[in-house]
């Protein structure tokens, strides 16, 4: 029994008991005689398939089929390190008598995700001068005191004291300049109001001014727009010989739930075409001698199952287009530099090329 829609064996990465085979892509000109394989946009567009599978308010899963790993990886890397967000970068401490040190508390505040749309804020330039276009200011002032109405014999800090915790919800936005209008639809605040930043006891107080700026994940992980952005390859299972009915249930248990269907009456075994993506390719089936040569495991080299979790600044479905736009900006930038090099080369005349100063 084979899979209904057979897949080009060149697209498969073999998964065996002790090794993986055919890892690298081979679709380059000159690799196969009498085959073109050079870049062809129409052919690429015909092969390309992007299909959204699941979408929630925080995450998205989609299939990206027909691109090389280098392209899929470029998008993943940009999502992690180069899609900008706005978070707290400068913390001015007026007062901090809590047990947590200034710099540790400042670091914790920096990690709090904010709901500010990065498109509405400019990146700071080389002068690092704060303006209402590139800086969002928050105030944080929390003082702890005894609760005069606390129940007798209570040992619960929440009852005994007022403000026994500094929470992310204590951040108060201070609009400046045109910000009141710009952020009218969505006033800046932490995406999660319940993050504990510090614990206080009566008499302790925190008073700070926080400046949030726009940045990218490669400068500091707190700027990363995603919680995770990852992909894996679609598993592919081929049952080569019929599985004996008395072993059907054991065979099914070798795979993730839902991946293998067993007919309740005939005990006929088949691969569930939709749920195959749930398989983790554990190779458990290859450990059992009774299944030798009955099944072939592999993954499809150009079928990427992307999973992106937003940190809150972007709607999850907006993240990939942002990443693609950043990629295209990089390319445009490089083209400009290459053109400059081309003209510099022309101007230099007979073969006198510019050299890198090393």
């Amino acid at each position: 029994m084979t899979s209904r829609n057979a897949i080009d064996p060149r697209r498969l990465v073999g998964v065996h008991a002790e090794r993986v085979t055919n890892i690298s892509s081979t679709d380059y000109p000159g690799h196969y005689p009498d085959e073109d394989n050079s870049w062809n946009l129409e052919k690429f567009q015909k092969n390309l398939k992007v299909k959204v599978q699941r979408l929630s308010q925080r995450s998205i899963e989609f299939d990206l089929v027909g691109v090389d790993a280098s392209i899929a990886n470029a998008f993943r890397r940009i999502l992690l390190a180069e899609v900008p967000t706005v978070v707290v970068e400068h913390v001015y401490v007026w007062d901090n008598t809590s047990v947590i040190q200034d710099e540790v508390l400042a670091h914790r505040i920096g990690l709090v995700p904010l709901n500010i749309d990065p498109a509405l804020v400019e990146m700071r330039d080389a002068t690092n001068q704060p303006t209402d276009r590139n800086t969002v200011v928050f105030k944080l002032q929390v003082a702890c005191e005894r609760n005069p109405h606390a129940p007798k014999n209570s040992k619960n800090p929440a009852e005994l004291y007022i403000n026994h915790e500094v929470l992310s919800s204590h951040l108060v936005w201070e609009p400046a300049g045109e910000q009141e209008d710009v952020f009218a639809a969505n006033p800046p605040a932490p995406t999660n109001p319940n993050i504990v930043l510090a614990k206080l006891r009566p008499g302790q107080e925190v008073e700070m001014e926080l400046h949030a700026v726009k940045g990218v994940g490669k400068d500091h992980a707190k700027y990363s727009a995603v919680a995770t952005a990852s992909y894996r390859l679609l598993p592919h299972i081929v049952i080569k010989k019929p599985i004996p009915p008395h072993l059907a249930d054991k065979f099914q248990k070798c795979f993730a739930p839902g991946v293998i269907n067993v007919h309740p009456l005939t005990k006929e075994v088949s691969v569930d075409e939709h749920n195959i993506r749930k398989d983790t390719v554990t190779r458990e089936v290859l450990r059992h001698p009774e299944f030798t040569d009955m099944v072939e495991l592999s993954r499809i080299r150009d079928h990427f199952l992307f999973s992106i979790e937003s940190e809150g600044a972007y709607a999850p479905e907006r993240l990939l287009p942002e990443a693609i736009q950043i990629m295209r900006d990089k390319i445009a930038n490089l083209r400009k530099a290459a053109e400059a090099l081309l003209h510099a080369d022309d101007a230099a005349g007979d073969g006198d090329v510019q050299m890198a100063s090393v």
Partner: protein
Amino acid sequence: MAEPIKKITLMKGSEPDLSAATYQIYDESHTIGNALRWMLMKNPKVEFCGYSAPHPSENTIQVRIQMYDNLSSLTALMDALSALDDLCESVDDAYKTSLKHDAYERWEERS
């Protein structure tokens, strides 16, 4: 401090006709390096293409391109950049089409 750092410089030892050259690209990483290498290798006129990130503390990558028939590697580089841009546009369009028209599962995620 004099002039700003050039985005692309031609490294020492390139052929005068640029049929073989190494380009040093400033402030780029594997993100562009590997994608560009792949696109250059899709060009049948390219004999060899490889890239490296020479050292983690240097913010550069180096792309080596060697051409058949004494063609210019700089032209190949420019073509690869245009092709990459077309590719990105195609992926973007396909994604937006799917997002708009496909039926997919929507669910409420608790945080």
